[in-house]
């Protein structure tokens, strides 16, 4: 789990403008049932990779759960999905 400062460094280094959130207590991760036990360094609990596209009423419009941690959706793919949906 990255601390806010770690995310801030990453954000600055890469020039990302989107929000990075930190979940050191794995609170949201557990609420979304994404906890991957002991999968991080020193057997820390981390999140499995997952992506959710959520509309203003909080409803999931698209989601993705990878079967392989090495395979993730690309930004371009997710942008296409977002543009193909009616909001």
């Amino acid at each position: 789990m990255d601390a806010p400062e770690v995310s801030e460094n990453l954000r600055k280094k890469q020039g990302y403008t989107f929000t990075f959130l930190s979940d050191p207590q794995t609170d949201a991760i557990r609420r979304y049932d994404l906890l991957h036990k002991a999968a991080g360094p020193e057997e820390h609990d981390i999140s499995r990779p997952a992506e959710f596209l959520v509309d203003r009423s909080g409803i999931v419009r698209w989601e993705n759960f990878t079967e392989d941690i090495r395979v993730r959706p690309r930004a371009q793919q997710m942008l296409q999905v977002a543009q193909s949906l009616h909001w």
Partner: protein
Amino acid sequence: MPGQPQKQSNRMLWLGLAFLLLAILSNLLYFLKVPAALLPWVNLTLPVLALILLLLGLVRAFRQPQIYKGKIWGSIVTVLAVLLVAASTLFFVGARKLPHSGGAPQVGQRVPDFTLSDSTGQPTSLAQLFSASGDAQPPKAVLLVFYRGYW
């Protein structure tokens, strides 16, 4: 020299070595725009093919050493291939050992709310992510990306 036939190069072993190198390089495919469904098969098939070719080559080298070369270097490369097959199989299994996440919100369902620290330490809720920043229109959607971290 009579009775001492010229030794042939052992093509199976060379082919096996080539597949072994391809198998190692195939891990780079994860960084290219290759259809993801293909990758595991390429990653697993190449080292197995390499191993089969090497074993066939080795059998030739040991059964007909008067004809085929490669007893020593073939054995070394085959051992490396066995290790590579074992390592890629372990890695393959490990990379796919993910929790079931049956309780995760499904398409059409409402996502649970949360309040978490942003990268400046500011508590941020899902509702806040939907609010307008500055003069910009409020966003129509929010993309939540859960990632493993430690980058």
